[in-house]
């Protein structure tokens, strides 16, 4: 066997052909950790978290509007905070510059 062949054999003998035990577990663990969440899923989750807060805020504002409502307003107008549509209000608009 010539020196070149021997060097080749040494290289083969000296090669390490595996990682430490549990390599596949480490890969799968890292994969699940780095697996990215799609944007649409992220937005959907954020939206669902905000829904109860948004509903509560809307209910509070509607209740405040109802308390401050004047006469001649429907309940829906009052809840939405819309001003009463009266002849006097129309004249007031006409007087504005």
């Amino acid at each position, binding site marked *: 066997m010539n*020196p*070149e062949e*021997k*060097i*080749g*054999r*040494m*290289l*083969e*003998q*000296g*090669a*390490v*052909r*595996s*990682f*430490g035990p549990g*390599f*596949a577990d*480490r*890969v*799968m663990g*890292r*994969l*699940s950790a*780095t697996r990215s969440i799609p944007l649409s899923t992220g937005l959907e989750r954020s939206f669902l978290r905000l829904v109860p807060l948004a509903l509560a805020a809307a209910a509070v504002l509607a209740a405040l509007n109802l308390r401050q409502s004047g006469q001649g307003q429907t309940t829906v107008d009052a809840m939405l905070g819309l001003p009463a549509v009266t002849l006097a209000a129309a004249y007031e608009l006409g007087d504005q510059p």
Partner: protein
Amino acid sequence: MDPGTTDDILLEQARRGEDAAFRHLVDRYHSVVATTVVGMLGPGDDADDVGQETFIRFHAALGQFRGEAALGTYLRRIAMNLSLNALKRRRWTAFRFVSRDQSPTSIDEPPVDGVDLEAAETRAVVRAAIDRLGPKHRSVVVLRMIEGLSTKETAEVLDLPLGTVLSRLARALAELETTLGPYARDGGPLGGGGGR
């Protein structure tokens, strides 16, 4: 999962998000990746990290892999590119911080005749010799000499012309002859023992 399941079937299942199929591919090809990565970087956490990253990148590219190259070749290419990047980082780090607890194994002195080196010692000697090679020569030696790929396959993984692979291999062998020659000559401590 049936061990006889073909790569194509496993790939299709992995593309559909079946982790068990991907894990099976990791089990099947981890030694291919390990030989490349550990050959380039030496054993240790660094190599393990690059090995994991190889499979993470492969998973991310599952949709793009259409089987133009063999799966082993494809994985070797990812592993080799990541290993070369790691070597660049390592050289930059070594340039900035000289570590005292990672002194390279010395192979300056030839071994004493009649003393048998154990497998671990062989690995240390070979490792030190490989570490002395530059990244270009090292990559050719790892693929051609350690992994046993053909020159054509080596050229395919490294994306190089055949002539370049051959000339790099010749230069790398000349360097290895200088460092490993004393061990490889007849009567040397590694003269005995079987191959792979």
